[in-house]
């Protein structure tokens, strides 16, 4: 049994699925409720800010469309990474894992830029309801992306150390599930916050 791959000592699996994958799916279900509650908060407070700046003054749809595209592409990288690891091609596995993380970091960079710009324009967490709910919702998403980036970089460095093998495919797949989920959440946020503003 390889060192980092298996958290359980199950002799069998009643469903045929690895336990860690079921864990990640259940976790994703819980996270849907988390983001759902944050989204409800954002929607409930849409249009309720008493003072500005208001969304229409600040949201830069073209810019965020680009960063959204970058995040979407990172999901493609993730798929390629998994495919490489599954067929034992660790060289390309490492490359694609790194690329996924890099694209994720570019996305985060875009978020940081946008947040800084908003603050310069006078919108902070405390300014009004838009500031509070916007930064909390997108910030929570950004924190999730950050955790994902750290995870991917860890896998990449494991690969650099030669600890990534074909048997790690399950771990990479589970990281991929998390990453794709984070991406899907962004698509929802992009739609609700930017496109439907």
């Amino acid at each position, binding site marked *: 049994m390889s060192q980092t791959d298996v958290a359980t000592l199950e002799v069998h699996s009643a469903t045929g699925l690895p336990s860690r994958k079921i864990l990640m799916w*259940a976790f994703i279900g819980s996270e849907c409720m988390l983001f759902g509650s944050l989204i409800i908060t954002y929607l409930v407070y849409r249009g309720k800010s008493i003072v500005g700046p208001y969304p229409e003054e600040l949201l830069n749809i073209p810019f965020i469309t680009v960063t959204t595209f970058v995040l979407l592409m990172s999901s493609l990288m993730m798929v390629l990474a998994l495919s490489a690891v599954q067929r034992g091609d660790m060289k390309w596995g490492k490359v694609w894992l790194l690329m996924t993380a890099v694209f994720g970091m570019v996305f985060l960079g875009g978020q940081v830029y946008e947040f800084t710009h908003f603050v310069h324009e006078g919108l902070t967490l405390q300014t009004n309801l838009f500031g509070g709910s916007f930064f909390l919702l997108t910030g929570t998403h950004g924190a999730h992306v950050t955790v994902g980036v750290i995870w991917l970089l860890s896998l990449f460095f494991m690969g650099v150390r030669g600890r990534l093998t074909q048997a790690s495919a399950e771990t990479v797949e589970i990281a991929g599930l998390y990453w794709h989920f984070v991406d899907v959440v962004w698509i929802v946020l992009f739609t609700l916050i930017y496109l439907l503003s």
Partner: protein
Amino acid sequence: MAVTGAVGAETPGVGAQDHGGTYSGGIWSWLTTVDHKRIGVMYGVSAFLFFLVGGIEALLIRLQLGTPENTLINPDLYNQLFTMHGTTMVFLAIMPLSAAFFNFIVPLQIGARDVAFPRLNAFSFWVFFLGALFMNSSFLFGGAPDAGWFGYANLTSTQYSPGMRVDFWVLGLLVLGVSSIAAALNFIVTIINLRCEGMHFMRMPLFTWMTLITSFLLVMAFPAITVGLVLLMFDRMFGTQFFNPLAGGDVLLWQHLFWIFGHPEVYILLLPGLGMVSEIIPVFSRKPLFGYAFVVYSGVLIAFLGFGVWAHHMFAVGLGPVANTVFAAATMLIAIPTGVKIFNWIATLWGGSLRLKTPLYFCLGFIAMFIIGGLSGVMHASAAADLQQTDTYFIVAHIHYVLFGGVMFALFAGMYYWIPKVTGRMLSDRLGKIHFWIMLVSFNLTFFPQHFLGLHGMPRRTFTYESGLGFEAMNLMSTVGALLLGSSMLIFIWNVLQMLRKGPPTGADPWGGSTLEWSIASPPPHYNFKVLPKVYGRDPLWAADTSDSRPGDDVEAPEPHMPGPSAFPLTTAIGIVVMAAGGLTTTLPVLFVGVAVVLFGVYGWAFQPLEH
């Protein structure tokens, strides 16, 4: 239909095994254990201690309310007491007590050697335990939370609740949420994936079923309160306006988020007990559970419907006739599957051969009290009638009939039933029955008058009441009842202590049970089953042994390799509570130390092989 190969080492008594006892080892072995049985014991002992803490808080409340205009307890302390009583009983007593049983019993019932993620399991316990200490430490640092266990905005804002009390509450609950969600995820995977061969879903014991449903409720409901708490935390610590009416914020958003969690939460509290009762009644009636499928489906239905009734806690808020109608109807609807369970239990008793032992006593008391609690619940469900009942002692009566008369009676049934499996010794049935009768009578003396106090106009969460309103006699009755109720616990504690000292040892199956946990020694060997069982139907131990021999008896099977101990779950848990302390005092260095410890713990955990 038979169980094959399920028998392990036989020596009865606490800790007498060849591997070293199930519970042997010093403190370090307990701090680093990943064995679900030990974790279950730790949950159970801690939960019971917090139950006593919450009980003392209740006794102080009752002493203050025993006479009108009493000055025993000032309003400041009183508000801390009732807040902590509710918070402690819900989060630090009932939930972990259920978790104790999830931990110890479920892997045994599904024929597994442990849960799917043993270290995550240990992590859940330590986060709970340290989080509970964190929250209770508030008594020493400026006062305990005092805005109610439901913490309504905007009373919880820094303007109306200055100081750290509410911060302790917010951060404490966020920490406890991590514990609950982690544990629930673990049990979902365990039950779905670690069932032994032949154990299809509709062959699972009821307690395991209810554990599965409760775990889904946990992972779906907790995020709502997490978000509410985060919004509140941001308001208090970072100056956001989420619950500030002057900036356009809506205090009702808190109520919605809280109750979207809060109502499923009461089913989280209730369903495990329902599962226990669903197993104990058949064993002591000597016949299978009547309507197994209906009892399962009604549990599922209660869980689903439980997400659609939350605003029945808000009938006086002015949501309007449409909302009130919808939520009244949904709340009434949920009474149906609940009733179905009750009828199936009675039908199980009916025609049976009732062995009137303590576990069954508590089940019968549970049914009797739960019916009353359910009926007052139906009264509250009527949104218009509830306008008189809400926020009064009528509600206090209802919640205690369902949570104490219901859940606690069921949990005591579970304790009397399963403690012999945990310790390998029998509790005294005589003392158990004395405990039961005193508890039943004093419980009713405490809470039945409260129905009338509420209807006669006594609001809840009040540190005193004026004389001349007619509240005196019933409050005094309630206080006397509470004192008796408290003392009944002493009988239970005495029973447990005398059992540990000199209780008669028991073998695998003292009750004639039907489920797999009764097929192995008491206490079970640390690997549970030497050879994993295979089942062919429900109630595997009751099936006539007509088929093949039981190879587990004489197979010289090697002892299974079990996961080794690990210090990383505890380390990570410590990191989380350090983070909470950093957040509480808004000191960044402490927060960063906490993050560092968490990262260290997580990486250590990820790279440590499970068996070593």
